[in-house]
């Protein structure tokens, strides 16, 4: 907590049920951390399903993983890590009151997130074209394993849910840009930027686990 100054006036962003900006900021930040915990448990279920089926069909995972394009997965990893950097820079800009920098960094982050989704789109399209569809619609016969569809069910569930999180992140950051342009944020109030940044880092970290678990095992 920074030292509350005696000259602090009742600020526009400060909700009436909080005592000061610090309390409000800390509460929001903690709320986001708690939310991230729930996200980890949410994905945790899928990681557990991944582990169980990998223990059962180890050879299937190795075979099926070859269908995934390690190169594009790696590119996406770099893209997301880069976007994590730019979102951190956006927070830094807000802290330094550089609203222009904040907006630019948010746009770069949004751009990188879109690049990620476009690459993901081409990956999905290529697989759908081959007949690698989720679950019961699976028709591909290039993998000699009876349960090949299960690997791809897990693949689509994990990357699909992650993709939805990326889309939510893009939406949040567009909203931040809108707010920043309306001069809502300044060095004394940038809570939404900070907590969106936290969320975005989680999206990034989940991908960092997904990439080796799905792409790099072959």
């Amino acid at each position, binding site marked *: 907590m920074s030292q509350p100054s005696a000259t602090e006036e009742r600020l526009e962003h400060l909700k009436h049920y909080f005592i000061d900006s610090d309390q409000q900021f800390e509460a929001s930040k903690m709320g986001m951390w*708690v939310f991230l915990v729930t996200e980890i*448990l949410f994905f945790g279920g899928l990681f557990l399903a991944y582990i169980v089926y990998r223990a059962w069909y180890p050879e299937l995972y190795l075979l099926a993983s070859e269908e995934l394009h390690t190169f594009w997965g790696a590119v996406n990893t770099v893209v997301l890590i880069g976007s994590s950097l730019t979102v951190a820079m956006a927070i830094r800009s807000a802290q330094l009151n550089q609203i222009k920098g904040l907006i630019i960094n948010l746009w770069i982050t949004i751009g990188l997130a879109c690049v990620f989704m476009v690459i993901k789109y081409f990956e999905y399209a290529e697989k759908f074209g081959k007949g690698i569809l989720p679950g019961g619609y699976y028709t591909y016969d290039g993998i000699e394993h009876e349960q090949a*569809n299960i690997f791809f069910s897990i693949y689509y*569930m994990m990357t699909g849910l992650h993709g939805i999180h990326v889309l939510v992140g893009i939406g949040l950051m567009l909203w931040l840009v809108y707010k920043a342009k309306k001069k809502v944020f300044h060095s004394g109030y940038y809570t939404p930027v900070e907590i969106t940044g936290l969320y975005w880092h989680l999206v990034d970290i989940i991908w960092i686990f997904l990439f080796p678990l799905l792409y790099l095992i072959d």
Partner: protein
Amino acid sequence: MATNEENSNTKKLQVRRFKPEENPEKHYLNEEKGIWAWMTTVDHKKIGLLYLGSITFFFFVGGVLALLLRTELLTPAQSFIDADTYNQVFTLHGAIMIFFFLIPSVPAVLGNFVLPLQLGAKDVAFPRLNLASYYIYVIGALFTLFAIFTGGVDTGWTFYTPYSATTGGNVMAMTFGVFILGFSSILTGLNFIVTIHKMRAPGITWNKLPLNLWGLYATSLIQILATPVLAITLLLLTMERLLQIGIFDPALGGDPVLYQHFFWFYSHPAVYIMIVPGFGIISEVISTFSRKVIFGYWAIALSSLAIAFIGFLVWGHHMFTAGQSSLANMVFSFLTFLVGIPTGIKIFNWLATMYRGSIDMKTPMLYAQVFLFLFTIGGFTGIMLGALSVDIHLHDTYYVVAHFHYVMMGGMVMAFLAGLHYWWPKMFGKMYSEFWAKISCAILFVGFNMTFLPQFVMGAQGMPRRYFNYIDQFQSFHQFSTIGAYVMGVAFVIMAIYLVHSLLKGKRASSNPWGSRALEWQISSPPSLHNFHHVPVIVNGPYDYHKPMSEFQLGIAASHNGHHAEEAVNVSQSEKEQA
């Protein structure tokens, strides 16, 4: 010690006594009028009442369904509904009572209402999120109603695969409804955790936190840790039906036992989501009506957390007969016994609190006694079910049904009713008829035992749960049980009548009708829209009945509900010094 700190600050903070205003002209119920103001309110008290209305509706629906089941079971063969309808009715009874009544009951209704008041806060940390969680609940409920009217669900409330992945009816809408509902529960838990951490009034340290809040805190931890797992489970189940992804369905290479692991990893902790906040209420009620400091404050507080923790390690005891390895069975059986320890600690501390207290057997206290009696039976039979060899015999019999109803209805619902009667004067500023409340409590107690005691016996004799027909030897038990269910129905009708009467024509309640020392009773009944016109300052523990009431009504003057900068700064400093 805290008093000394207070003294060193008094010059600056100007702590003084704030006597609660009696019979306030303006309060949270009449300050904003109209349906729209209610539907869009971010006030935690009103959101609590919105939840109260909703869960009352669902309790009524679930109760009527239970009476239908019991009526059908009067005769061994078909009485008046066919077997398929019977399956749908017991599924709905379970799903509605658990997901739409029990889980939101204490946290979302009483927790929402009381938590900020007990913290001396003006609201929860995220009031809009709080309102959102209510609407998420409503949307989840609409999905469930949609499922009922588009084919129904006959899987049982557990939605076990592979049956749930292949049966007819609208399982998808139902599971999606529960999936959505889960987010409501998560958001409530998140809100409570942050509020308890960040919004305590000056002087409320962790060892002065009312035990009700310790209970809600432990509950919230379970909610945020367990519910996401249910969410992903139900999402996978939905995908199983939609896309045949083959995770849970053995016909597609999946594993139905994995579903059970996932499901119970949530649903076992979920029974603690239901019961732990009840423990919090019982602590408040027993201390208040014994006029005595609670015995073993830390033991009760930490045992809530211990139950929350151990609750995550026992899910396998639902699967003793599902093909789990025998080693896992033994480990889960042993861990299940451990839950008895913190629960026993609580029971003994409550008894010790009552010992030599000046007990006032008002309605909430009566419910607390009913709770102690019924919950202890429920708890012990739970230990018996946790024992491996016994469970093989009792698994999927009426014994399990009776055990579950003893802990959930005998424990949780009684605790909820204790809390409802305890905080009713604070919620509405009206008293209810003490006489009729006690009569109704007594009838409920008799009816409850009539309904569920015979089920222990027939379960032990081999009557399987969820069966539509039964052999003749069980008929007398079933009939006794059905009569008991109607007796309970009568008790609830009486309760509805005197509570409605209290709302319309009840005597006005004073600000503190029970003489409690807790913070929520130190403001007017009903509270004003922003709860406190001052910043409350706490110097004593919440159960220090040996200290005068005046010491519990201290506060710092704050004009404009604390909007003023000068006081705000001082308060945050004093907070830091006392933390």
